[in-house]
């Protein structure tokens, strides 16, 4: 299973999904209307490394996080 977490203001509980890449994750999350806006403005990290392409293989135990727009300081 791959764990998916939603950071900061995204009010959504973590998911445990049986997926093997980010395309599959995108497909699943796009079905959730409330996630629409967050998908557009969030970055994605796999095992705490930001990724810039969906061509990332996911394996058992991997962790994906979604990072919405930031404003530190």
């Amino acid at each position: 299973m791959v764990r998916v977490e939603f950071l900061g203001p995204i009010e959504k509980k973590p998911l445990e999904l049986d997926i093997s890449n980010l395309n599959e994750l995108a497909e699943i999350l796009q079905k959730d209307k409330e996630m629409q806006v967050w998908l557009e403005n969030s970055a994605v990290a796999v095992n705490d490394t930001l990724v810039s392409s969906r061509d990332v293989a996911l394996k058992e135990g991997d962790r994906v996080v979604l990072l919405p727009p930031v404003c530190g300081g």
Partner: protein
Amino acid sequence: MLYLYDGSLDVPTILKEWYEQEADSNYGAYIPFVGTVRSEDNIEGLSFDIYEPILRSWFEAWQQRIRAKGAVIKMAHSRGDVMLHESSYIAAVFSPKRRVALEFIDEFVEDFKASAPIWKYDLKNGKRIYALDRSTAIKGSGLLS
């Protein structure tokens, strides 16, 4: 070094400690940037969420880049609530000569604003309201849309 605190920062103490930490390191320039919560739009204060693992790796990458120029970077940030006129953020560069520190403090603070995984909320009537309009999408956002 990266320091995270619950609530507001004790600015004079942090500026003093950092100055003393590098007192014998032979740096000619020390430039702190201090960020303080401003009264605007009737807020009572701000509140911050931090995602520490990515903040630490982002900071580590900066640290290496700045060390390669013979300089040092330190940063402190608040978690949770920080009220009006309290401070939530300090970044500081030490360098042998002034130009390196002057350029890095600017670049670091701007990249911090654009990239550091920290989320800001306005505190209004006791509620925590995400400051979306003042936030910046991290580079590469929208990958799953």
